[in-house]
């Protein structure tokens, strides 16, 4: 398993496509907590997959004013089809070209597989990583860790 960037580290900035004609930068979100959810690939075959689960839990994240973003090495068109099929209400970012650059900068890339880890980061409003977690690739980590980290931010 990769060594993901630990709490206390400044979150590496990035600019990635979020739709075929739009990009988003981490920098733009300064001032609010950000949740980065790296995951291996779109179209995981189970019904309660990680992104679908977070989609259901979105209101709980929003209570903390947090912005959730999913990231994988899938291309923008793939993300669009996936987001539409699952009715996802949060952005999916394409870490596609050069492939996995952002995942690498967070220590969350699986070089042998050519995809990112199932890694979670909660970034505080000043851009510092407040919590990070890397799950075994086959285990959907759920959202309890994220919510606990968000709660910790307000203390």
């Amino acid at each position, binding site marked *: 398993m990769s060594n993901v960037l630990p709490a206390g580290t400044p979150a590496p900035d990035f600019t990635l496509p979020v739709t075929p004609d739009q990009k988003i930068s981490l920098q733009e979100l300064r001032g609010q907590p950000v949740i980065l959810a790296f995951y291996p690939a779109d179209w995981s075959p189970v*019904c*309660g997959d990680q992104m*679908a*689960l977070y*989609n259901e839990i979105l209101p709980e994240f929003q209570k903390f004013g947090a912005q959730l973003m999913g990231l994988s090495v899938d291309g923008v068109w793939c993300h669009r089809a996936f987001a539409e099929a*699952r009715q996802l209400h949060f952005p999916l970012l394409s870490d596609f070209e050069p492939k996995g650059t952002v995942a690498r900068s967070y220590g969350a890339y699986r070089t042998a597989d050519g995809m990112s880890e199932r890694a979670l980061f909660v970034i505080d409003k000043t851009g510092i990583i407040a919590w990070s977690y890397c799950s075994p690739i086959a285990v959907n980590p*759920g959202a309890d*860790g994220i*919510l606990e980290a968000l709660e910790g931010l307000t203390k």
Partner: protein
Amino acid sequence: MAKLRTAVTPQDHIQGPEDAEVTLVEYGDYECPHCGGAYPVVKRLQKHFGKRLGFVFRNFPLSEVHPHAESAAEAAEFAGAQGKFWEMHDLLFENQERLSEPLYLRLAEELGLPPEALRQALEEGIYEARVRADFSSGVRSGVNGTPTFFINGERHDGPFDYETLLLAIQEKIGKRETPSSLKADGFFVRVSRRGDYAYGR
């Protein structure tokens, strides 16, 4: 390892003794095919372990992907408020492909519950808060999809077929019963090659 954050209380729907040796908690969704698949598995486990296993069902409707999951959960809670939770729970899973309000009303009638009261409860969302509370407790406990099982409070990661769950539950029973405590009680345990336990004095 994720842990169940909301302890089992008498407010839960529970089958089997509250102080059973092992308590299996399922967070499930009536429209989820995997939960439908787990339904007969749980029945087999209950048959196998008898009074040694308690089973709790909590609602975790994935409404974004399953449009009938929430209403089915509320229909089960309506039945639960009148002492018929498990009957409705079973019927909903057995009719999983046909979930809809007309079905709930028919099932209510079958169970001797007033369909009109159910219709009104669904319309007014009387049981919505209860379902939400289950959902939130699941989120906080690390529920990561449906079904998610907790065995004595620990999330069960991995497959949920009969053999896997059977072994996982047996492991918990094994941990509980140390040889010394068995000796003190004057019990003996035989473990068959299949891994079943036999008890006697």
